[in-house]
Protein backbone atom coordinates (compact mmCIF):
# COMPACT_ATOMS: atom_id res chain seq x y z
CA UNK A 1 0.00 0.00 0.00
CA UNK A 2 2.83 2.37 0.76
CA UNK A 3 4.63 1.89 -2.51
CA UNK A 4 1.84 2.52 -4.95
CA UNK A 5 4.24 3.94 -7.48
CA UNK A 6 6.29 0.80 -7.27
CA UNK A 7 3.22 -1.31 -7.80
CA UNK A 8 2.17 0.52 -10.89
CA UNK A 9 5.60 -0.06 -12.39
CA UNK A 10 5.23 -3.75 -11.59
CA UNK A 11 1.80 -3.77 -13.17
CA UNK A 12 3.11 -2.04 -16.25
CA UNK A 13 5.76 -4.68 -16.65
CA UNK A 14 3.03 -7.27 -16.71
CA UNK A 15 1.61 -5.46 -19.69
CA UNK A 16 -1.98 -5.01 -18.58
CA UNK A 17 -2.90 -2.08 -20.83
CA UNK A 18 -4.91 -0.19 -18.23
CA UNK A 19 -1.85 0.26 -16.07
CA UNK A 20 0.10 2.29 -18.58
CA UNK A 21 -2.57 4.91 -18.45
CA UNK A 22 -2.77 5.77 -14.83
CA UNK A 23 0.88 5.70 -13.93
CA UNK A 24 1.06 8.31 -11.26
CA UNK A 25 3.98 8.87 -8.98
CA UNK A 26 3.46 8.27 -5.29
CA UNK A 27 3.57 11.94 -4.36
CA UNK A 28 1.14 12.84 -7.12
CA UNK A 29 -1.22 10.22 -5.84
CA UNK A 30 -0.96 11.57 -2.30
CA UNK A 31 -1.83 15.00 -3.62
CA UNK A 32 -4.85 13.54 -5.37
CA UNK A 33 -6.03 11.98 -2.16
CA UNK A 34 -5.55 15.26 -0.32
CA UNK A 35 -7.78 16.93 -2.86
CA UNK A 36 -10.36 14.18 -2.86
CA UNK A 37 -10.88 12.64 0.58
CA UNK A 38 -13.65 10.39 -0.80
CA UNK A 39 -11.11 8.66 -2.98
CA UNK A 40 -8.90 8.06 0.01
CA UNK A 41 -11.77 6.58 2.00
CA UNK A 42 -12.79 4.33 -0.90
CA UNK A 43 -9.21 3.19 -1.38
CA UNK A 44 -8.90 2.33 2.31
CA UNK A 45 -12.22 0.43 2.23
CA UNK A 46 -11.09 -1.57 -0.78
CA UNK A 47 -7.82 -2.48 0.87
CA UNK A 48 -9.54 -3.42 4.12
CA UNK A 49 -12.03 -5.68 2.34
CA UNK A 50 -9.31 -7.45 0.42
CA UNK A 51 -7.36 -7.83 3.62
CA UNK A 52 -10.48 -9.18 5.35
CA UNK A 53 -11.13 -11.83 2.71
CA UNK A 54 -7.56 -13.04 2.42
CA UNK A 55 -6.95 -12.63 6.16
CA UNK A 56 -10.00 -14.74 6.93
CA UNK A 57 -8.72 -17.54 4.73
CA UNK A 58 -5.26 -17.41 6.25
CA UNK A 59 -6.73 -17.33 9.74
CA UNK A 60 -9.00 -20.33 9.11
CA UNK A 61 -6.18 -22.34 7.57
CA UNK A 62 -3.62 -21.54 10.27
CA UNK A 63 -6.15 -22.09 13.04
CA UNK A 64 -7.14 -25.50 11.71
CA UNK A 65 -3.57 -26.56 10.99
CA UNK A 66 -2.21 -25.47 14.38
CA UNK A 67 -4.96 -27.25 16.26
CA UNK A 68 -5.21 -30.23 13.97
CA UNK A 69 -1.75 -31.35 12.98
CA UNK A 70 -0.69 -32.37 16.52
CA UNK A 71 -3.68 -34.73 16.59
CA UNK A 72 -2.93 -36.46 13.32
CA UNK A 73 -1.86 -39.58 15.17
CA UNK A 74 -1.31 -43.03 13.73
CA UNK A 75 -4.42 -44.09 15.61
CA UNK A 76 -6.43 -41.78 13.41
CA UNK A 77 -5.39 -43.87 10.44
CA UNK A 78 -6.13 -47.37 11.62
CA UNK A 79 -8.08 -49.60 9.28
CA UNK A 80 -10.94 -50.29 11.61
CA UNK A 81 -13.08 -47.63 13.28
CA UNK A 82 -13.73 -48.17 16.96
CA UNK A 83 -15.30 -45.81 19.46
CA UNK A 84 -11.86 -45.49 21.06
CA UNK A 85 -9.65 -44.65 18.11
CA UNK A 86 -12.40 -42.83 16.10
CA UNK A 87 -10.25 -43.54 13.07
CA UNK A 88 -10.88 -41.43 9.99
CA UNK A 89 -9.21 -43.74 7.49
CA UNK A 90 -12.44 -45.64 6.70
CA UNK A 91 -14.15 -42.28 6.18
CA UNK A 92 -11.37 -41.19 3.80
CA UNK A 93 -11.75 -44.42 1.84
CA UNK A 94 -15.52 -43.95 1.82
CA UNK A 95 -15.01 -40.45 0.44
CA UNK A 96 -12.86 -41.82 -2.37
CA UNK A 97 -15.37 -44.60 -3.07
CA UNK A 98 -18.25 -42.17 -3.07
CA UNK A 99 -16.40 -39.78 -5.38
CA UNK A 100 -15.43 -42.50 -7.84
CA UNK A 101 -18.90 -44.03 -7.99
CA UNK A 102 -20.64 -40.68 -8.31
CA UNK A 103 -18.35 -39.62 -11.14
CA UNK A 104 -18.86 -42.96 -12.85
CA UNK A 105 -22.59 -42.36 -12.81
CA UNK A 106 -22.87 -38.63 -13.41
CA UNK A 107 -20.01 -37.83 -15.79
CA UNK A 108 -21.11 -39.98 -18.77
CA UNK A 109 -24.72 -38.86 -18.40
CA UNK A 110 -23.68 -35.23 -18.08
CA UNK A 111 -21.33 -35.36 -21.07
CA UNK A 112 -23.91 -37.11 -23.26
CA UNK A 113 -26.55 -34.60 -22.23
CA UNK A 114 -24.23 -31.74 -23.18
CA UNK A 115 -23.45 -33.45 -26.50
CA UNK A 116 -27.14 -33.62 -27.24
CA UNK A 117 -27.68 -29.99 -26.31
CA UNK A 118 -24.75 -28.68 -28.34
CA UNK A 119 -24.38 -31.06 -31.27
CA UNK A 120 -27.80 -32.56 -31.90
CA UNK A 121 -30.59 -30.35 -30.64
CA UNK A 122 -32.12 -27.85 -32.98
CA UNK A 123 -31.66 -24.29 -31.90
CA UNK A 124 -34.62 -22.93 -29.97
CA UNK A 125 -36.46 -26.22 -29.72
CA UNK A 126 -38.99 -26.53 -26.90
CA UNK A 127 -37.28 -29.55 -25.40
CA UNK A 128 -33.96 -27.76 -25.12
CA UNK A 129 -35.64 -24.90 -23.29
CA UNK A 130 -37.24 -27.32 -20.84
CA UNK A 131 -33.91 -29.09 -20.31
CA UNK A 132 -32.21 -25.76 -19.62
CA UNK A 133 -34.84 -24.71 -17.10
CA UNK A 134 -34.59 -28.12 -15.42
CA UNK A 135 -30.79 -27.95 -15.25
CA UNK A 136 -30.85 -24.43 -13.84
CA UNK A 137 -33.44 -25.40 -11.24
CA UNK A 138 -31.46 -28.47 -10.30
CA UNK A 139 -28.31 -26.43 -9.78
CA UNK A 140 -30.11 -24.07 -7.42
CA UNK A 141 -31.66 -26.65 -5.12
CA UNK A 142 -29.99 -26.68 -1.68
CA UNK A 143 -28.17 -29.86 -0.80
CA UNK A 144 -30.41 -30.55 2.19
CA UNK A 145 -33.39 -30.79 -0.18
CA UNK A 146 -31.46 -33.31 -2.27
CA UNK A 147 -30.71 -35.18 0.92
CA UNK A 148 -34.34 -35.18 1.96
CA UNK A 149 -35.41 -36.40 -1.46
CA UNK A 150 -32.81 -39.17 -1.45
CA UNK A 151 -33.93 -40.21 2.01
CA UNK A 152 -37.58 -40.38 0.93
CA UNK A 153 -36.99 -42.15 -2.33
CA UNK A 154 -34.12 -44.57 -1.70
CA UNK A 155 -34.10 -45.17 2.01
CA UNK A 156 -37.83 -45.23 2.66
CA UNK A 157 -39.62 -45.97 -0.61
CA UNK A 158 -37.10 -48.44 -2.00
CA UNK A 159 -36.14 -49.67 1.49
CA UNK A 160 -32.40 -49.45 0.84
CA UNK A 161 -31.77 -48.28 4.40
CA UNK A 162 -28.79 -45.98 4.85
CA UNK A 163 -26.70 -47.07 1.91
CA UNK A 164 -23.77 -45.83 -0.10
CA UNK A 165 -25.69 -46.20 -3.35
CA UNK A 166 -28.42 -43.86 -2.12
CA UNK A 167 -25.72 -41.28 -1.42
CA UNK A 168 -24.11 -41.85 -4.80
CA UNK A 169 -27.34 -41.36 -6.77
CA UNK A 170 -28.29 -38.30 -4.73
CA UNK A 171 -24.88 -36.72 -5.29
CA UNK A 172 -24.99 -37.61 -8.99
CA UNK A 173 -28.20 -35.63 -9.37
CA UNK A 174 -26.54 -32.78 -7.55
CA UNK A 175 -23.43 -32.54 -9.71
CA UNK A 176 -25.19 -33.29 -13.00
CA UNK A 177 -25.95 -29.63 -13.84
CA UNK A 178 -22.32 -28.70 -13.15
CA UNK A 179 -21.01 -31.38 -15.54
CA UNK A 180 -23.55 -30.46 -18.21
CA UNK A 181 -22.74 -26.75 -18.05
CA UNK A 182 -18.96 -27.08 -18.15
CA UNK A 183 -19.09 -29.71 -20.91
CA UNK A 184 -21.42 -27.51 -22.93
CA UNK A 185 -18.97 -24.64 -22.67
CA UNK A 186 -16.10 -26.91 -23.66
CA UNK A 187 -18.02 -28.24 -26.68
CA UNK A 188 -19.02 -24.76 -27.80
CA UNK A 189 -15.35 -23.76 -27.69
CA UNK A 190 -14.45 -26.42 -30.28
CA UNK A 191 -14.12 -24.58 -33.61
CA UNK A 192 -16.70 -25.44 -36.26
CA UNK A 193 -13.90 -26.14 -38.75
CA UNK A 194 -13.12 -29.33 -36.81
CA UNK A 195 -16.66 -30.55 -37.38
CA UNK A 196 -16.64 -29.51 -41.02
CA UNK A 197 -13.28 -31.15 -41.58
CA UNK A 198 -14.48 -34.37 -40.08
CA UNK A 199 -17.70 -34.37 -42.07
CA UNK A 200 -15.77 -33.45 -45.18
CA UNK A 201 -13.62 -36.55 -44.76
CA UNK A 202 -16.78 -38.61 -44.74
CA UNK A 203 -17.12 -39.28 -41.02
CA UNK A 204 -20.60 -39.64 -39.62
CA UNK A 205 -21.99 -37.52 -36.83
CA UNK A 206 -21.29 -40.09 -34.13
CA UNK A 207 -17.70 -40.64 -35.23
CA UNK A 208 -17.20 -36.86 -35.36
CA UNK A 209 -18.48 -36.51 -31.81
CA UNK A 210 -16.39 -39.30 -30.33
CA UNK A 211 -13.22 -38.99 -32.40
CA UNK A 212 -12.95 -35.25 -33.00
CA UNK A 213 -15.13 -33.10 -30.78
CA UNK A 214 -14.94 -34.84 -27.41
CA UNK A 215 -11.15 -35.38 -27.47
CA UNK A 216 -10.67 -31.67 -28.21
CA UNK A 217 -12.97 -30.74 -25.35
CA UNK A 218 -11.28 -32.95 -22.76
CA UNK A 219 -9.50 -30.18 -20.78
CA UNK A 220 -12.73 -28.20 -20.45
CA UNK A 221 -14.64 -31.28 -19.36
CA UNK A 222 -11.85 -32.10 -16.89
CA UNK A 223 -12.19 -28.73 -15.20
CA UNK A 224 -15.89 -29.45 -14.67
CA UNK A 225 -15.13 -32.89 -13.28
CA UNK A 226 -12.63 -31.43 -10.82
CA UNK A 227 -15.17 -28.87 -9.63
CA UNK A 228 -17.58 -31.76 -9.17
CA UNK A 229 -15.01 -33.69 -7.12
CA UNK A 230 -14.66 -30.64 -4.90
CA UNK A 231 -18.39 -30.57 -4.33
CA UNK A 232 -18.60 -34.28 -3.58
CA UNK A 233 -15.75 -34.18 -1.09
CA UNK A 234 -17.20 -31.14 0.66
CA UNK A 235 -20.80 -32.28 0.74
CA UNK A 236 -22.41 -33.27 4.00
CA UNK A 237 -26.05 -32.20 4.19
CA UNK A 238 -27.12 -34.39 1.27
CA UNK A 239 -25.37 -37.43 2.69
CA UNK A 240 -26.36 -37.59 6.35
CA UNK A 241 -29.77 -39.08 5.56
CA UNK A 242 -28.86 -41.02 2.44
CA UNK A 243 -25.56 -42.78 2.96
CA UNK A 244 -25.88 -42.30 6.70
CA UNK A 245 -23.30 -42.41 9.41
CA UNK A 246 -21.80 -45.90 9.16
CA UNK A 247 -18.24 -45.58 10.36
CA UNK A 248 -16.64 -48.39 8.41
CA UNK A 249 -16.15 -49.27 4.79
CA UNK A 250 -19.48 -50.56 3.42
CA UNK A 251 -19.87 -54.23 2.72
CA UNK A 252 -22.68 -53.84 0.21
CA UNK A 253 -24.19 -51.23 -2.08
CA UNK A 254 -27.61 -51.32 -0.46
CA UNK A 255 -29.22 -52.94 2.54
CA UNK A 256 -27.66 -53.60 5.92
CA UNK A 257 -23.99 -52.81 6.35
CA UNK A 258 -23.97 -50.48 3.37
CA UNK A 259 -23.99 -47.24 5.31
CA UNK A 260 -20.85 -45.18 4.72
CA UNK A 261 -19.97 -41.83 6.21
CA UNK A 262 -17.64 -39.67 4.15
CA UNK A 263 -15.02 -37.54 5.83
CA UNK A 264 -17.31 -34.51 6.12
CA UNK A 265 -20.07 -36.54 7.76
CA UNK A 266 -17.48 -38.20 10.01
CA UNK A 267 -16.28 -34.76 11.05
CA UNK A 268 -19.83 -33.55 11.65
CA UNK A 269 -20.52 -36.45 13.99
CA UNK A 270 -17.27 -35.88 15.87
CA UNK A 271 -17.80 -32.16 16.30
CA UNK A 272 -21.46 -32.60 17.20
CA UNK A 273 -20.76 -35.04 20.00
CA UNK A 274 -18.36 -32.56 21.54
CA UNK A 275 -16.21 -35.39 22.89
CA UNK A 276 -13.75 -35.63 20.04
CA UNK A 277 -12.88 -32.04 19.23
CA UNK A 278 -9.22 -32.89 18.66
CA UNK A 279 -10.07 -35.63 16.21
CA UNK A 280 -12.49 -33.27 14.47
CA UNK A 281 -9.60 -30.83 14.04
CA UNK A 282 -7.52 -33.64 12.57
CA UNK A 283 -10.27 -34.46 10.06
CA UNK A 284 -10.52 -30.79 9.21
CA UNK A 285 -6.80 -30.78 8.38
CA UNK A 286 -7.27 -33.69 5.99
CA UNK A 287 -10.33 -32.03 4.43
CA UNK A 288 -8.39 -28.79 3.94
CA UNK A 289 -5.56 -30.78 2.40
CA UNK A 290 -7.94 -32.46 -0.03
CA UNK A 291 -9.51 -29.11 -0.93
CA UNK A 292 -6.06 -27.65 -1.50
CA UNK A 293 -5.02 -30.50 -3.80
CA UNK A 294 -8.28 -30.31 -5.77
CA UNK A 295 -7.84 -26.57 -6.21
CA UNK A 296 -4.24 -27.04 -7.31
CA UNK A 297 -5.23 -29.56 -9.99
CA UNK A 298 -8.09 -27.30 -11.05
CA UNK A 299 -5.64 -24.39 -11.45
CA UNK A 300 -3.31 -26.54 -13.50
CA UNK A 301 -6.10 -27.58 -15.86
CA UNK A 302 -7.31 -23.98 -16.20
CA UNK A 303 -3.79 -22.83 -17.01
CA UNK A 304 -3.47 -25.59 -19.56
CA UNK A 305 -6.68 -24.44 -21.26
CA UNK A 306 -5.59 -20.81 -21.19
CA UNK A 307 -2.23 -21.69 -22.73
CA UNK A 308 -3.91 -23.59 -25.53
CA UNK A 309 -6.19 -20.68 -26.27
CA UNK A 310 -3.45 -18.09 -26.18
Amino acid at each position, binding site marked *: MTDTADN*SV*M*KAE*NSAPENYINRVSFTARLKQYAR*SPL*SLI*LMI*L*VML*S*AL*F*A*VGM*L*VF*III*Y*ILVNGIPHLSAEQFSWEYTTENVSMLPAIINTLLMTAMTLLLAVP*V*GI*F*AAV*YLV*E*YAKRGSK*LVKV*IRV*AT*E*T*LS*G*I*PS*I*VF*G*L*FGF*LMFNIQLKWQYSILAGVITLSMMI*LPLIIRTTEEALLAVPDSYREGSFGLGA*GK*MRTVFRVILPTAVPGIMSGVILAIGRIV*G*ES*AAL*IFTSGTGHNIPKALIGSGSSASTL*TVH*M*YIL*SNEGLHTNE*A*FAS*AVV*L*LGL*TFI*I*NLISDMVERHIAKKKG
Partner: protein
Amino acid sequence: MQKVKEKLMRTVFLICACVSILAVVLICVYLFATGVPAMKEIGFTDFLFGQKWKPSSGYFGIFPMIIGSILVTGIAVVVGVPAGILCAVFMAHYCPAWLYRFVKPAVNLLAGIPSIVYGFFGLMVIVPFMKNLFGGSGKSLLTAGILLGIMILPTVIKTTEASLNAVPKSYYEGSLALGATHERSVFFASLPAAKSGILAAIILGVGRAIGETMAVVMVAGNQTILPESITSGIRTMTSNIVMEMGYATGLHQEALIATAVVLFVFILIINLCFSALKRRKD
Protein backbone atom coordinates in the same frame (compact mmCIF):
# COMPACT_ATOMS: atom_id res chain seq x y z
CA MET B 1 -26.11 -50.63 -39.98
CA GLN B 2 -24.29 -47.33 -39.64
CA LYS B 3 -27.61 -45.52 -39.76
CA VAL B 4 -29.02 -47.65 -36.98
CA LYS B 5 -25.97 -46.92 -34.85
CA GLU B 6 -26.28 -43.19 -35.45
CA LYS B 7 -29.96 -43.27 -34.54
CA LEU B 8 -29.24 -45.32 -31.45
CA MET B 9 -26.55 -42.95 -30.18
CA ARG B 10 -28.75 -39.98 -30.86
CA THR B 11 -31.43 -41.56 -28.71
CA VAL B 12 -28.90 -42.28 -25.95
CA PHE B 13 -27.78 -38.65 -25.97
CA LEU B 14 -31.39 -37.51 -25.89
CA ILE B 15 -32.22 -39.75 -22.94
CA CYS B 16 -29.20 -38.46 -21.01
CA ALA B 17 -30.29 -34.91 -21.71
CA CYS B 18 -33.69 -35.72 -20.27
CA VAL B 19 -32.24 -37.10 -17.04
CA SER B 20 -32.12 -33.63 -15.47
CA ILE B 21 -35.80 -33.12 -16.28
CA LEU B 22 -36.53 -36.48 -14.69
CA ALA B 23 -34.51 -35.51 -11.61
CA VAL B 24 -36.37 -32.22 -11.12
CA VAL B 25 -39.74 -33.90 -11.67
CA LEU B 26 -38.91 -36.68 -9.22
CA ILE B 27 -37.78 -34.23 -6.56
CA CYS B 28 -40.88 -32.09 -7.02
CA VAL B 29 -43.22 -35.08 -6.96
CA TYR B 30 -41.67 -36.55 -3.83
CA LEU B 31 -41.62 -33.27 -1.96
CA PHE B 32 -44.94 -31.82 -3.06
CA ALA B 33 -46.91 -35.07 -2.92
CA THR B 34 -46.08 -35.44 0.76
CA GLY B 35 -45.55 -31.83 1.72
CA VAL B 36 -48.69 -30.23 0.38
CA PRO B 37 -51.16 -32.70 1.95
CA ALA B 38 -49.27 -32.31 5.23
CA MET B 39 -49.68 -28.55 4.99
CA LYS B 40 -53.37 -29.06 4.36
CA GLU B 41 -53.69 -31.33 7.35
CA ILE B 42 -51.94 -28.87 9.62
CA GLY B 43 -53.69 -25.93 7.97
CA PHE B 44 -51.85 -23.59 5.65
CA THR B 45 -51.97 -20.59 7.94
CA ASP B 46 -51.21 -22.64 11.04
CA PHE B 47 -48.22 -24.11 9.25
CA LEU B 48 -46.82 -20.99 7.61
CA PHE B 49 -47.69 -18.46 10.32
CA GLY B 50 -47.95 -20.62 13.42
CA GLN B 51 -45.37 -19.54 15.95
CA LYS B 52 -45.16 -22.79 17.85
CA TRP B 53 -43.16 -25.80 16.74
CA LYS B 54 -43.83 -28.64 19.15
CA PRO B 55 -44.12 -31.86 17.18
CA SER B 56 -44.77 -33.93 20.30
CA SER B 57 -47.96 -32.01 21.07
CA GLY B 58 -49.04 -31.48 17.50
CA TYR B 59 -47.95 -27.89 16.89
CA PHE B 60 -46.29 -27.41 13.53
CA GLY B 61 -45.76 -23.71 12.97
CA ILE B 62 -42.66 -22.88 10.94
CA PHE B 63 -43.02 -19.09 11.07
CA PRO B 64 -39.98 -18.72 13.38
CA MET B 65 -37.92 -20.80 10.98
CA ILE B 66 -38.97 -18.79 7.94
CA ILE B 67 -38.09 -15.59 9.78
CA GLY B 68 -34.88 -17.25 10.95
CA SER B 69 -33.82 -18.12 7.41
CA ILE B 70 -34.62 -14.63 6.17
CA LEU B 71 -32.84 -12.85 9.01
CA VAL B 72 -29.72 -15.02 8.86
CA THR B 73 -29.55 -14.51 5.11
CA GLY B 74 -30.06 -10.77 5.59
CA ILE B 75 -27.15 -10.50 8.00
CA ALA B 76 -25.01 -12.64 5.70
CA VAL B 77 -25.75 -10.23 2.86
CA VAL B 78 -24.92 -7.21 5.01
CA VAL B 79 -21.61 -8.79 6.05
CA GLY B 80 -20.63 -10.56 2.85
CA VAL B 81 -21.83 -8.41 -0.03
CA PRO B 82 -20.07 -5.06 0.60
CA ALA B 83 -16.84 -6.81 1.54
CA GLY B 84 -17.17 -9.09 -1.47
CA ILE B 85 -17.81 -6.27 -3.93
CA LEU B 86 -14.94 -4.19 -2.57
CA CYS B 87 -12.65 -7.21 -2.69
CA ALA B 88 -13.66 -7.79 -6.31
CA VAL B 89 -12.84 -4.14 -7.03
CA PHE B 90 -9.44 -4.75 -5.48
CA MET B 91 -8.84 -7.76 -7.68
CA ALA B 92 -10.00 -6.08 -10.86
CA HIS B 93 -8.53 -2.59 -10.42
CA TYR B 94 -5.91 -2.50 -7.67
CA CYS B 95 -4.20 -5.82 -7.44
CA PRO B 96 -0.76 -5.92 -9.10
CA ALA B 97 -0.20 -9.01 -11.21
CA TRP B 98 2.31 -10.61 -8.84
CA LEU B 99 -0.15 -10.36 -5.96
CA TYR B 100 -3.06 -11.52 -8.11
CA ARG B 101 -1.32 -14.86 -8.52
CA PHE B 102 -1.88 -15.40 -4.79
CA VAL B 103 -5.20 -13.65 -4.25
CA LYS B 104 -7.07 -15.50 -6.99
CA PRO B 105 -6.22 -19.00 -5.71
CA ALA B 106 -6.97 -17.77 -2.19
CA VAL B 107 -10.51 -16.83 -3.20
CA ASN B 108 -10.90 -20.18 -4.97
CA LEU B 109 -9.74 -21.96 -1.85
CA LEU B 110 -12.19 -19.97 0.24
CA ALA B 111 -14.90 -21.21 -2.11
CA GLY B 112 -13.70 -24.79 -1.87
CA ILE B 113 -13.55 -25.18 1.90
CA PRO B 114 -16.35 -27.59 2.92
CA SER B 115 -19.19 -26.01 4.85
CA ILE B 116 -18.62 -28.42 7.71
CA VAL B 117 -15.15 -26.93 8.19
CA TYR B 118 -16.66 -23.44 8.21
CA GLY B 119 -19.22 -24.61 10.74
CA PHE B 120 -16.55 -26.12 12.94
CA PHE B 121 -14.46 -22.97 12.69
CA GLY B 122 -17.52 -20.93 13.65
CA LEU B 123 -18.18 -23.19 16.58
CA MET B 124 -14.61 -23.02 17.86
CA VAL B 125 -13.80 -19.36 17.14
CA ILE B 126 -16.82 -17.14 16.46
CA VAL B 127 -19.11 -18.71 19.08
CA PRO B 128 -16.70 -18.21 22.02
CA PHE B 129 -15.96 -14.71 20.75
CA MET B 130 -19.66 -13.82 20.73
CA LYS B 131 -20.07 -15.44 24.12
CA ASN B 132 -17.44 -13.13 25.57
CA LEU B 133 -18.90 -10.13 23.82
CA PHE B 134 -22.61 -10.55 24.49
CA GLY B 135 -22.89 -13.32 27.06
CA GLY B 136 -25.32 -16.20 26.65
CA SER B 137 -24.36 -19.27 24.69
CA GLY B 138 -22.74 -17.37 21.83
CA LYS B 139 -24.79 -19.34 19.33
CA SER B 140 -27.02 -16.77 17.75
CA LEU B 141 -28.55 -15.12 14.75
CA LEU B 142 -25.56 -12.80 14.55
CA THR B 143 -23.00 -15.63 14.77
CA ALA B 144 -24.70 -17.60 12.00
CA GLY B 145 -25.09 -14.45 9.89
CA ILE B 146 -21.42 -13.53 10.16
CA LEU B 147 -20.29 -17.07 9.36
CA LEU B 148 -22.60 -17.20 6.33
CA GLY B 149 -21.33 -13.76 5.31
CA ILE B 150 -17.82 -15.21 5.17
CA MET B 151 -19.09 -18.24 3.30
CA ILE B 152 -20.78 -16.23 0.55
CA LEU B 153 -17.73 -13.99 0.08
CA PRO B 154 -16.12 -16.08 -2.68
CA THR B 155 -19.41 -16.35 -4.59
CA VAL B 156 -19.88 -12.59 -4.51
CA ILE B 157 -16.22 -11.87 -5.29
CA LYS B 158 -16.04 -14.19 -8.30
CA THR B 159 -19.26 -13.04 -9.94
CA THR B 160 -18.59 -9.36 -9.31
CA GLU B 161 -15.02 -9.61 -10.57
CA ALA B 162 -16.17 -11.29 -13.77
CA SER B 163 -18.72 -8.56 -14.42
CA LEU B 164 -16.20 -5.81 -13.60
CA ASN B 165 -13.76 -7.30 -16.08
CA ALA B 166 -16.50 -7.29 -18.70
CA VAL B 167 -16.93 -3.51 -18.43
CA PRO B 168 -15.19 -1.80 -21.37
CA LYS B 169 -11.88 -0.23 -20.34
CA SER B 170 -12.90 2.96 -22.12
CA TYR B 171 -15.33 3.81 -19.31
CA TYR B 172 -12.49 3.90 -16.85
CA GLU B 173 -10.12 5.65 -19.22
CA GLY B 174 -12.68 8.26 -20.19
CA SER B 175 -13.31 9.06 -16.58
CA LEU B 176 -9.57 9.38 -15.90
CA ALA B 177 -9.21 11.66 -18.88
CA LEU B 178 -11.85 13.92 -17.40
CA GLY B 179 -9.60 14.33 -14.38
CA ALA B 180 -11.26 11.93 -11.95
CA THR B 181 -9.07 10.00 -9.55
CA HIS B 182 -8.53 6.26 -9.90
CA GLU B 183 -11.10 5.60 -7.16
CA ARG B 184 -13.74 7.88 -8.63
CA SER B 185 -13.26 6.32 -12.04
CA VAL B 186 -13.60 2.82 -10.67
CA PHE B 187 -16.53 3.50 -8.36
CA PHE B 188 -18.53 5.97 -10.42
CA ALA B 189 -17.81 4.82 -13.98
CA SER B 190 -16.87 1.12 -14.00
CA LEU B 191 -18.85 -0.14 -11.03
CA PRO B 192 -22.27 1.24 -12.08
CA ALA B 193 -21.73 -0.31 -15.51
CA ALA B 194 -21.35 -3.70 -13.83
CA LYS B 195 -24.61 -3.21 -11.94
CA SER B 196 -26.50 -6.22 -13.28
CA GLY B 197 -23.55 -8.53 -12.70
CA ILE B 198 -23.30 -7.32 -9.12
CA LEU B 199 -27.01 -7.90 -8.62
CA ALA B 200 -26.53 -11.42 -9.94
CA ALA B 201 -23.71 -11.87 -7.43
CA ILE B 202 -26.01 -10.81 -4.61
CA ILE B 203 -28.76 -13.18 -5.72
CA LEU B 204 -26.31 -16.07 -5.96
CA GLY B 205 -25.03 -15.21 -2.50
CA VAL B 206 -28.57 -15.14 -1.10
CA GLY B 207 -29.26 -18.51 -2.70
CA ARG B 208 -26.16 -20.01 -1.14
CA ALA B 209 -26.91 -18.49 2.27
CA ILE B 210 -30.54 -19.58 2.46
CA GLY B 211 -29.72 -23.13 1.42
CA GLU B 212 -26.73 -23.58 3.71
CA THR B 213 -27.32 -26.21 6.34
CA MET B 214 -24.43 -27.77 8.21
CA ALA B 215 -22.57 -24.61 9.09
CA VAL B 216 -25.74 -22.90 10.32
CA VAL B 217 -26.94 -25.81 12.40
CA MET B 218 -23.67 -25.76 14.33
CA VAL B 219 -23.66 -22.09 15.29
CA ALA B 220 -27.24 -20.78 15.25
CA GLY B 221 -28.50 -22.23 18.55
CA ASN B 222 -31.57 -23.73 16.87
CA GLN B 223 -34.27 -22.42 19.22
CA THR B 224 -37.69 -22.65 17.62
CA ILE B 225 -38.95 -19.30 18.87
CA LEU B 226 -38.97 -15.92 17.21
CA PRO B 227 -35.71 -14.15 18.07
CA GLU B 228 -35.95 -11.25 20.50
CA SER B 229 -32.69 -9.68 19.49
CA ILE B 230 -29.80 -10.18 17.17
CA THR B 231 -28.01 -12.24 19.81
CA SER B 232 -30.82 -14.74 20.41
CA GLY B 233 -30.58 -18.23 19.06
CA ILE B 234 -32.52 -19.09 15.97
CA ARG B 235 -33.44 -22.02 13.78
CA THR B 236 -33.54 -21.89 9.99
CA MET B 237 -35.68 -24.04 7.73
CA THR B 238 -32.64 -26.03 6.61
CA SER B 239 -31.49 -26.78 10.14
CA ASN B 240 -35.03 -27.73 11.13
CA ILE B 241 -34.93 -30.47 8.51
CA VAL B 242 -31.46 -31.73 9.28
CA MET B 243 -32.01 -31.80 13.05
CA GLU B 244 -35.25 -33.73 13.17
CA MET B 245 -35.42 -35.80 9.99
CA GLY B 246 -33.42 -38.65 11.54
CA TYR B 247 -36.07 -39.61 14.07
CA ALA B 248 -39.29 -37.99 12.84
CA THR B 249 -42.25 -40.17 11.93
CA GLY B 250 -45.81 -39.66 10.73
CA LEU B 251 -47.12 -36.12 10.54
CA HIS B 252 -43.89 -34.81 12.05
CA GLN B 253 -41.89 -36.20 9.13
CA GLU B 254 -44.44 -34.86 6.68
CA ALA B 255 -44.23 -31.45 8.30
CA LEU B 256 -40.45 -31.49 7.77
CA ILE B 257 -40.98 -32.35 4.11
CA ALA B 258 -43.44 -29.47 3.95
CA THR B 259 -40.67 -27.27 5.38
CA ALA B 260 -38.51 -28.38 2.48
CA VAL B 261 -41.35 -27.43 0.11
CA VAL B 262 -41.37 -23.90 1.52
CA LEU B 263 -37.58 -23.75 1.19
CA PHE B 264 -37.88 -25.04 -2.37
CA VAL B 265 -40.38 -22.30 -3.22
CA PHE B 266 -37.99 -19.69 -1.80
CA ILE B 267 -35.19 -21.06 -3.97
CA LEU B 268 -37.45 -21.12 -7.03
CA ILE B 269 -38.25 -17.45 -6.51
CA ILE B 270 -34.55 -16.64 -6.19
CA ASN B 271 -33.80 -18.64 -9.36
CA LEU B 272 -36.55 -16.83 -11.22
CA CYS B 273 -35.07 -13.48 -10.20
CA PHE B 274 -31.68 -14.68 -11.38
CA SER B 275 -32.83 -15.88 -14.78
CA ALA B 276 -34.98 -12.78 -15.29
CA LEU B 277 -31.88 -10.72 -14.63
CA LYS B 278 -29.82 -12.79 -17.05
CA ARG B 279 -32.42 -12.46 -19.74
CA ARG B 280 -32.56 -8.70 -19.31
CA LYS B 281 -28.79 -8.55 -19.67
CA ASP B 282 -28.92 -10.46 -22.93
